């Protein structure tokens, strides 16, 4: 089932699986349900602006780097800050 959803079945196995799905009262609905779910999941925006309602995290990351000096001391001169 996962390989079918991912499109990674060989042609022969794909044909056998398709035949099985046509005949099996459990696998057919399951496959169609999972295909619908995948479409729905892919519709969830992955762009940062949509997923980060509090705004950009860039300033907080830069200040965290500054406040936690490593041996390479990436960004000196900024004070630590926490968003929100």
């Amino acid at each position, binding site marked *: 089932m*996962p390989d079918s959803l991912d499109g990674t079945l060989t042609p022969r196995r794909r044909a056998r699986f398709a035949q099985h799905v046509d005949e099996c009262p459990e696998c057919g609905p399951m496959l169609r349900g999972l295909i619908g*779910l995948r479409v729905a999941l892919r519709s969830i925006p992955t762009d940062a602006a949509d997923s980060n309602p509090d705004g950009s995290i860039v300033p907080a990351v830069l200040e*965290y780097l500054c406040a936690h000096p490593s041996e390479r001391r990436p960004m000196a001169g900024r004070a630590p800050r926490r968003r929100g």
Partner: protein
Amino acid sequence: MSEESPPTVEDGALVARAGAGDHLAFEELVRVYADRLHAVIRRLVDDPHEAEEVTQEAFLRAWRGIAMFNGDSQFFTWLYRIGVNEAYRRTSRRRVPQTSLDERRIEPADTRPGPLRHLEHDDLRHALERAVRRLPPDQRAPLVLRDIEGLRTTEAAAILGLDEAVFKSRLHRARLAVRDAVRDYLPEDPGQ
């Protein structure tokens, strides 16, 4: 993110400069990728403040290790691995609350019968988000990386340090759990 895109010339140059100790180049990488990584981490870590801390720590570890980044994978894939590992490290300290299958079922916000049962897109999206959040961490990460972020199976499994067969098994269980939770929001099976 859709299917894996090839590394950009800009990325390669910035990574090379950062690897040589150029903090301005690394700062540019932070500007390019921090929000994107944070968006992924927010789906893996429930507490927003902790997600922020995980993202910050991931970049600190990336800065400390970027000289050893060998370019076998894309920079963001490498960054994903650091961020996901940090998220795992934190979430594994806590016990995941166990919920029954009935509790995992997301109640639809609209109980109108018939075609109106299939709600607006935003309702489905919110139901999906809630269902994903209720997954245990070992199932949530495969689903987020594969089905929401759109990474290839091989790449997502490598990021999580899992054998592909194990990854697929966890992904399948996650998909079934989410499908069951949002069943009422999805179109009816035309084969029924």
